[in-house]
């Protein structure tokens, strides 16, 4: 009795999860449900990474996308005022055009994807060491550039959004 069928079955379930979740995120008009389904899509993607033998990337996917970005989006949703909008997609009539573009991109990708026949090589004992060495040796410079970029973005966001404390401003005016 062999268990070779397990991996394709898991792959099929995960890809159904990714695609269905992604479609639902776009189609749903309830934004909190869309955010939760996005987290579900990210979880399925993490499952794909595990199947490929890249547990570290899978865990970072969950840590950053589910644990941080989805929560951030939910925060944004909760701080935004919105009422009942029964016709949320009222002005959006580009569905046929979108279908044409999706087909134009998806069909070549599918053809190229299916033309690969060789199985992916599996690093033994996880991808942690390989990932760490590549990030901190071969790609150290791009890594640092990305971190500086993120820092600049963070400082910029704080400067742009910081409002003056009215109490402090009043104190300074009085002086």
């Amino acid at each position, binding site marked *: 009795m062999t268990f070779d069928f397990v991996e394709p079955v898991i792959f099929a379930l995960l890809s159904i999860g990714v695609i269905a979740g992604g479609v639902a995120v776009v189609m749903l008009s309830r934004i909190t449900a869309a955010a939760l389904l996005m987290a579900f899509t990210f979880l399925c993607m993490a499952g794909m990474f595990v199947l490929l033998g890249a547990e570290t990337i899978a865990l970072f996917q969950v840590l950053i996308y589910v644990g*941080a970005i*989805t*929560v951030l989006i939910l925060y944004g949703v909760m701080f935004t005022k919105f009422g009942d909008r029964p016709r949320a997609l009222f002005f959006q009539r580009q569905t046929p055009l979108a279908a044409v573009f999706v087909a134009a991109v998806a069909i070549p990708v599918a053809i190229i994807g299916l033309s690969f026949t060789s199985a992916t090589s599996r690093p033994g004992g996880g991808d942690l060491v390989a990932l760490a060495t590549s990030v901190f040796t071969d790609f150290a410079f791009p890594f640092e550039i990305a971190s500086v970029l993120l820092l600049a973005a963070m400082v910029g966001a704080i400067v742009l959004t910081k409002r003056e404390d009215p109490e402090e401003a009043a104190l300074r005016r009085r002086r």
Partner: protein
Amino acid sequence: MPVGPFGIDPLIWAPLRLVIAVGLALFLVLNGALLQIYLERKIQAIIQDRLGPYHVGPFGLLQTFADALKLISKEDVRAQATDGWFFVAAPALVFCPMLASWVVLPFAQDIVGANLNVGLLYLTTLGSMTVLGIVIAGWASNNKYALVGGLRSAGQLISYEIPQILALVSVALVVGSLSMIDITRSQAGPLVNVLILPFSFVIYFIAALAETNRTPFDLPEAESELVAGWLTEYSGMRWGTMLALSEYGNVTVVCAIVTTLWFGGWQGPGVEAIPLLGVLWFTLKVYAFIVVMMWIRATLPRLRIDQLMSFCWKGLIPMALLNIVVVAVLALAFPTTKVPIAVASWLLLVVFVAGIPFVQRRRLRTLRARARAATAPAVRAAS
């Protein structure tokens, strides 16, 4: 055909092992929560010079079982305005990550659900997923108190995750592995990690108190300001799953991490001869930390939300970053010996503890000066 443990095909053994592990974890979470609630009440009673539960069963031991039965048999109340599916899903979203993190806890030499080589990262990842459930619970309750409580709680958890992860990194730097088993094995003998890295242990323990919503950081359930925070609309077994099971399960997980990373996990006298003795050592160490957490709860008052946030961002995170830099530099400079790291870490700890009164005094002085400046013109105008 290869034969695994107990003469079972390894390919069948792998999923079977998973089922056994999840069943055992569920059993331990359920009973651990009952035991810990009893312990919590008894210890608080002793500290407050009361008797605590003592009517049901010997020494009141069956009190929490009776409470659990009451919770299970309670009516499933759901306010009309709650957000149907989300309201039901939130307790599961809080409970499941906690249960899943039990997979990598090493109870003894070979008693571990899965020996992941990224075990530590796995634990932090699951810890971050709890926030999602709490935010959803606050939102789905459709109640101002619950929403504000959920947002507060999410802000607290996200903030305190950072010093927690930074403290874990310093251990990973010294040990050179993220696997819980390897970290335990590296501390054979009396030289446990807490002697080498006491400062990161203190940072982790403080952050862990906040991460598990324990006093002095139990703001999410500040009754006087937020009713019961994000738990306001929950009752019966949903409340039980969210609060009792998840909270005490998380406390156990955090204490198990502390035990494994800094106190040698299942290592102890006589473990080489009888490997099963490891379970006893592990459990004893974990429960020692749980008791310390309860002791803190009975001793300290609650912080205000701005104090909590400024303590994390201005106190813990800079110190944790400094700790990482020092440990990393010393680990690179002296690859063969751990003595410089230990000396530096102890020094940092002393500076941190001794510096708190000075910082606090300066902060109070500026606060008082600001208050005086704000009221002085008003007083002048009135006179």
